[in-house]
């Protein structure tokens, strides 16, 4: 790692001030992506502002049909939370497939959402559930938040504080993990929300997480794997790498979407 200054912020305001004063400073939450990035010398921040302990970023609350999770909540806290398991079990299940136990003991949902890795799991849940990303400056709808691979609506110095998930009628996540890394080769989160069925795809898109609107229309009429049979994701918009071709990923998306749909409705 290149040298940097480590500072632990005591309040959200302090963290925001430090980040605003230094454009080369970076916020550090669980560090499960940032620290490996630094170790590989792919980034050279001047300062790491540790926000993991901030009270403003902590806590899980279920109120008026909305599950709100603090950005610095670690994966294991979400996966093990009796509240999350009861009111949004699909999210608890998704989180328990992230990486491995040691990583889930450190990594945070806010870090993952702010990083917007194209193969991360959390963005699929945020997008499909039509969640709101609450920052220290404003509230951003999921549809506006994710703007392409490793790109979000966050401005310099803007921090994710909480994520508010309106509770769906039902939801499910199906993931085809890469057998070695556990990252999604394709992951599909389907939610029956107040504004209809929403289908979010991670791991496969060339521009990160995206909504598969054709599948939303088809599943609104018939929530089953069979409803997807005649559909095809355009391979042109998918990611191709050493792990799989575009066409392979297109097929995986369809199969995962079918599994998630079947998990909700019980219909194949």
């Amino acid at each position, binding site marked *: 790692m290149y040298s*940097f200054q480590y500072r632990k912020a005591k309040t959200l305001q302090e963290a925001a001030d430090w980040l605003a004063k230094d454009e080369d400073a970076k916020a550090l939450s669980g*560090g499960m992506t940032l*620290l490996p990035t630094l170790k590989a010398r792919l980034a050279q921040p001047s300062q790491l502002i540790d926000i993991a302990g901030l009270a403003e970023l902590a806590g899980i609350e279920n109120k008026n049909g909305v599950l709100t999770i603090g950005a610095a909540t670690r994966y294991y806290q979400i996966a093990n939370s009796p509240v999350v398991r009861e009111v949004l079990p699909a999210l608890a299940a998704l989180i328990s497939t992230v990486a491995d136990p*040691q990583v889930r*003991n450190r990594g945070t949902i806010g870090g993952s959402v702010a990083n917007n890795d194209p193969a991360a799991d959390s963005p699929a849940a945020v997008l499909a559930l039509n969640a709101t990303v609450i920052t220290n400056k404003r509230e951003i709808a999921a549809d506006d938040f994710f703007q392409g691979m490793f790109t979000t609506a966050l401005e310099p110095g803007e921090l994710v504080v909480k994520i508010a998930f309106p509770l769906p009628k039902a939801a499910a996540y199906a993931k085809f993990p890469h057998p070695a890394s556990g990252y999604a080769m394709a992951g599909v989160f389907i939610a029956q929300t107040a504004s209809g069925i929403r289908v979010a795809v991670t791991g496969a898109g060339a521009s990160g997480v995206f909504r598969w609107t054709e599948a939303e229309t088809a599943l609104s009429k018939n929530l089953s794997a069979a409803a997807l049979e005649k559909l095809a994701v355009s391979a042109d918009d998918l990611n191709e790498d050493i792990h799989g071709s575009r066409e392979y990923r297109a097929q995986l998306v369809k199969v995962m979407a079918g599994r998630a749909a079947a998990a909700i409705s019980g219909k194949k």
Partner: protein
Amino acid sequence: MAKITITVNGVKQSADVEDRTLLANFLRDTLKLTGTHVGCDTSQCGACTIHVDGRAVKSCTMLAAQADGAEVVTIEGLAKNGKLHPAQAAFTECHALQCGFCTPGMIMTTAALIKEHPAPTDEQIVHGLEGNICRCTGYLNIVKAVKHAAALQKGK
């Protein structure tokens, strides 16, 4: 420089470290606790697994400064009063190792796993060990050892 105080295996350790010092390096180079191994150094293999505030973490992917004020347990701190921890005893009895490089991390993960799941199922064991890689054994005896460790823990 960061001024840190970390309780390691029950002993308070204060030191000035460079801000970028990894917890694994602090344990190995400063405290000379070399039982914590650094294998891949990319948070995949789990050889560097220790406990921070009771939870298994990969110490190669944590700054020493992030552990300021925390309680850390390494493989050296697992045995109590000369008696092996159930995970250590089980790995010995089940021959759950060959070269031994991954073993400290495997045992630290196992200790955390059987604390969370006192009677783990095969699935819980296999998923629980996802963050630890062994290149010798093929895992069969490791899975046996985790089950045995749970039984030893229950019996103690």
